[in-house]
């Protein structure tokens, strides 16, 4: 029996693990078998994480977070949760390997997954010219013409990165202005290989077994046109990964996990949420890390209250550990 199981290994999951481990809660982190480290594993330079004035590569940042969590006693498993039983006071987590783990508390930090446009050609040609990861697939578009769909920071970062390979990168956006931060916008505007296509929605992806073009529809007058190209990178946002807790935890109208006020407490006692899975708005590595801290502290308070109510006592009282940490 564990004190806490953390599901997810992005900035939220690992920060929760660092705090929980320092409170001697010996957290188990279920990191995922093939997506450990979360979304930052597919980014390049991270320039806005405090403490790294020269920037840091996303995968390096995640390796450091993991190292920090493990240093204080977190155990990391490269496995996937296939089912969750969270109704009673003891939570049960079943993994892809068949292993079963139990704990008094769960931190649910599964992050988010790239949003799809939701058109027929997109699914059919996924991996055949339709991509959701510039750092993974950009290499295959050397001297080709491609498009990035989206107007946020991720779209600008991908477009700028892809100019290392592609001869031409269109950025297709529904509106006439970008959501992206000024610094990312300016970098993209200055890049000669990038051409902006404003007020346009992608309504179809063309090609038999490889992408040959897009059908664009004007969001102003509804007119349609075709754009010939070899690849399309979709960067239109993310959707929270909540499939494991559908019908188990209350969700918001936006599909994120509903929590009480500014806490991490979900609709089920002993289950806490952190990171992108509860945040439809900010979705930054730093805000996710902060959210992981909130969850770990909420876990400590919950366990302390359980201890006072006479639940099976484990190694040490979490509150004492917290006092130790504060004094250190």
């Amino acid at each position, binding site marked *: 029996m564990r004190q806490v199981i953390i599901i997810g290994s992005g900035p939220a999951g690992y920060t929760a693990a660092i705090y929980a481990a320092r409170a001697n809660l010996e957290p188990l982190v279920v990191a995922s078998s*093939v997506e450990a480290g979360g979304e930052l594993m597919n980014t390049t330079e991270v320039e806005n994480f405090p403490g790294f004035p020269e920037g840091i590569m996303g995968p390096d940042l995640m390796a450091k977070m993991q190292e920090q969590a493990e240093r204080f006693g977190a155990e990391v498993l490269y496995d996937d949760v296939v089912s969750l039983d969270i109704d009673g006071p003891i939570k049960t987590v079943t993994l892809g390997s068949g292993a079963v783990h139990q704990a008094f508390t769960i931190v649910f930090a599964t992050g988010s997954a790239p949003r799809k446009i939701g058109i027929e050609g997109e699914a059919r040609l*996924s991996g055949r010219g339709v991509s959701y990861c510039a750092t993974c697939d950009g290499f295959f578009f050397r001297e080709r013409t491609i498009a990035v769909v989206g107007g946020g920071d991720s779209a600008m970062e991908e477009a700028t990165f892809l100019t290392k390979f592609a001869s031409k990168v269109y950025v297709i956006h529904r509106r006439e202005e970008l959501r992206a931060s000024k610094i990312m916008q300016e970098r993209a505007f200055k890049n000669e290989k990038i051409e902006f296509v404003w007020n346009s929605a992608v309504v179809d992806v063309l090609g038999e077994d*490889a992408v040959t073009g897009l059908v664009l529809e004007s969001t102003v007058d509804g007119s349609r046109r075709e754009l010939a190209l070899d690849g399309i990178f979709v960067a239109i946002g993310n959707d929270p990964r909540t499939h494991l807790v559908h019908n188990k935890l209350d969700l918001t109208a936006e599909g994120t996990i509903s929590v009480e006020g500014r806490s991490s407490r979900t609709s089920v006692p002993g289950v806490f949420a952190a990171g992108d899975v509860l945040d439809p708005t900010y979705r930054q590595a730093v805000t996710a890390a902060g959210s992981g801290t909130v969850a770990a502290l909420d876990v400590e308070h919950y366990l302390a209250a359980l201890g006072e109510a006479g639940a099976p006592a484990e190694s040490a009282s979490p509150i004492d550990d917290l006092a130790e940490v504060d004094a250190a």
Partner: protein
Amino acid sequence: MTAKATTSATFEQDVLQAEGPVLVDFWAEWCGPCRMVSPVLDQIQSEHPEKITILKLNVDENPDLAMKYQITSIPAMKVFNKGQVETTIIGAKPKFALEQDLAAYIG
């Protein structure tokens, strides 16, 4: 037994002329998801050495084959049988999901 490597020079013999099904994992050093799926493929290989041969093909070192098989996203796993591509799996997946995709061979 972990998965071995194949190259442009040996592909004909390793893959196209092979007797049983051969899964070729198109990968690269710089591809994070490839590095994650690689040990999973090693496990599947060691659990089913008789049923399927799993070979890794580095797309940086063998761009001709990446182009020939129209690879635009990695990891890309293609199962060859009697010289023909029978199954294509794109993207890193957990072991149980890969096992489902490969059930026809290793089930």
